[in-house]
């Protein structure tokens, strides 16, 4: 699963922060997920649990908080804004899967609902961010 690769990235980054901040334990990691990534949170949490082994003293008690940011798209031609989840319902399984792997492929499969231009920007809701790593 592709969620595994992202979970590895989160753990690796949190450990790097802990090293830089000289933390002996990480108590909380706050993650922001863009809706466009269409992450399966169950699969992501499963991967995190598998990657964070109980013997990992730094991370074993870490609380992981997920916040999903809704994806908002804005047409560069007519200025119309729309929500990705409205458009997502019209995507085929294959198109949706492509956006899941490489969110920028949304530019291939989506168009402005108002003027049909493919030239739009992803204003919000893409990428994966670690908002904070807390510990002591």
């Amino acid at each position, binding site marked *: 699963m592709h969620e595994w690769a992202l979970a590895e990235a989160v753990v*690796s980054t949190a450990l790097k922060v802990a090293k830089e901040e000289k933390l002996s334990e990480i108590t909380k990691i706050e993650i922001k997920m863009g809706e466009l990534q269409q992450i399966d949170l169950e699969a992501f949490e499963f991967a995190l649990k598998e990657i964070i082994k109980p013997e990992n003293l730094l991370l074993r008690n870490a609380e992981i908080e997920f916040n999903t940011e809704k994806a908002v798209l804005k047409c560069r031609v007519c200025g119309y804004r729309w929500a990705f989840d409205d458009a997502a319902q019209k995507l085929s399984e294959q198109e949706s899967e492509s956006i899941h792997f490489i969110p*920028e492929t949304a530019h291939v499969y989506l168009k402005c609902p108002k003027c049909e231009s493919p030239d739009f920007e992803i204003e919000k809701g893409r*990428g994966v961010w670690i908002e904070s790593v807390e510990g002591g």
Partner: protein
Amino acid sequence: MDPRVEIIDERLKNIDRVIAVSGGKGGIGKSVIASTVALSLAKRGHKVGLLDLDFTSPSTHVILGIDDIFPEEEKGIVPPEIYGIKFMSIVYYTGDGPSPLRGLDISNAMIELLAITRWGNLDFLIVDSPPGIGDATLDTVRLMKKTEFLVVTTPSRVALATVKKVLTMLKELKSPIIGIVENMKITRSSLVQEELEMFNVPFLAEIDFDRKLENTLGDVNRLLQTNFARSIANKVIPQLTKPVSAAI
């Protein structure tokens, strides 16, 4: 902070050398050279990957005649192997549709692809760079820190003007440059070699314009029998397979 950026070094750690075929101008043969270099290295028994970073106009799949393979999903995505090459391109996810991506989208797509692709152990990862010296080249330097550049030009003064900018920029970025390949030669002019001498970069090869090349694209066996492929094999590959300290 973006955890995807942080994991990229880890994803590339078992790759001995990352070589980006670059050159600034479009239509100078970067993709055909990248594909043929990858094929030639694989034929010599090296473990090779080929990454098409031209997200808006990917073409290495056309050159290699690839149309019915797809990456496996296994703790990320695993590039399928064909002709001895682990092949990765955005085309798996875009199909034949146009992908009108702007700069930030290109950066994000590249970060995503590099963060989730599991190459495994490779001797060489050959990167086909898009035209231009913008986002993709800058991000190649930023995100794939061990990248060395193989710079392509043609005898055209138009290509030459741009390749000078590429070489200047790569030097400013302190990126290793393996050398220059002058592609599509139609006369014995040494203009390009003379003009680029000031950069103090090895001039690796002159490759003659091969009229028969176009008709072999899409058919790897025929492609490898062209004079073009023989020139790559005889003039460029030895420069890539000699010890790193001697190559740079």
